[in-house]
């Protein structure tokens, strides 16, 4: 994993319009953000398009980014990705065509692992977006309550409550399937 100090050096260069440094940031974070987006969108092309949108926004707004003592650069990236995802859901068609929802197993780097937990992914995909987001950020991306609160623009208590409700809802979905 790249040290935060190395990442800050890349950011400083990218802020001076160094596209190569920005490309290195893309190499470090694109996989994480793609996992986050595809897990919710269930459509590879859309996830790739949104990933592009996220990095375009990051490039254009990089000079507005200021390092903070208690937040990593990835927190800001996930914030941008989360808002982009929310905007996308607001503007998408009210009903999704059946062929737009793809079987994610074909895109998993480890299809066996995906198949093993397919029931969990399927149950999660039926939860409201905010529940999916908090579970993904907290347990799949392994982010802290603090970081998750910043990304979702809530306070820490709000995240704890949301997490509690999301787990309860997921448990109920899984119990219903049995």
């Amino acid at each position, binding site marked *: 994993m790249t040290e935060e100090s190395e990442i800050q050096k890349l950011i400083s260069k990218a802020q001076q319009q160094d*596209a190569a440094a920005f490309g290195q940031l893309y190499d470090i974070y694109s*996989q994480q953000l793609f996992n986050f987006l595809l*897990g919710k969108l269930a459509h590879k092309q859309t996830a790739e398009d949104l990933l592009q949108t996220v990095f375009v926004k990051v490039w254009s707004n990089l*000079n507005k980014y200021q390092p903070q003592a208690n937040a990593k650069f990835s927190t*800001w990236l996930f914030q941008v990705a989360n808002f982009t995802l929310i905007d996308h859901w607001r503007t998408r068609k009210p009903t999704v065509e059946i062929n737009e929802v793809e079987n994610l197993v074909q895109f998993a780097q480890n299809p066996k692992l995906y198949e*093993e937990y397919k029931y969990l992914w399927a149950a999660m995909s039926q939860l409201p977006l905010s529940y999916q987001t908090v579970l993904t950020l907290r347990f799949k991306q392994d982010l802290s309550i603090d970081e998750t609160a910043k990304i979702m623009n809530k306070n820490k208590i709000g995240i*704890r409550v949301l997490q509690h409700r999301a*787990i309860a809802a997921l448990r109920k979905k899984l119990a219903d399937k049995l």
Partner: protein
Amino acid sequence: MKFFDSQPDDKLVYLLKQSRLDFKLDQKTTKARLLCAIAQGDIDGPIQPVQTRHGLIFKFEVGLAGIVVVVSATFATAATSLPGDKLFAVNKLREKIILSLPLSAQTKAQIQTQIVEARFKALDVETSEKSATATSPTTNHRRLETIKESEESLNQAVNAISANQQDFEKTGNQQQAQKFNQTLSHLAQMASTREQTIQTLANQSSDTVERAEITSHLDHFRSARQKAEIQINISQ
């Protein structure tokens, strides 16, 4: 609250963590597409911050681009007022409002430094040879106010910037901590050159009460400068 008494569903959390996986991303192709768009100028690069007409630099955080600072006519006039002036309290309120905005630590450090510089500039005028010899109740009051405001602004700036520098050091962000170090060094240097003139004023004052007040402010002034120097030494 009842929520926080109950333990999360540990087994479900365990499953969620175990189900972490990467999806296939053609990083090469998607990156090439992005960098091509940047090279062709299809996307605007990092936008530079804007300088306001009052010389203060405002940098808005991502997501807060909709916040607009409206400076009223009174505030605009008060911006040039000095300690001892009638509108100086309004100027201080304006500074307080600006510092309470959700700005980054770096931007606030810049603003605080500019406030200290403005106070010191006023102090230089009051402690110049011509002004220092003038005595009248109004002049004496103004001089004392200027010394007091200089000391207070220096103290506030050193405390705030030291705290931020310590936070960045704790998280291993040495680059940012070093920048705050440089700011503290600049403040300490500015303070050092003013201490002698304030001491001279205290020595020249024939009023016992006034001399005691100036000396008291000078002590706090000196403490703030020493605090900045200690913080710089600790971090090196």
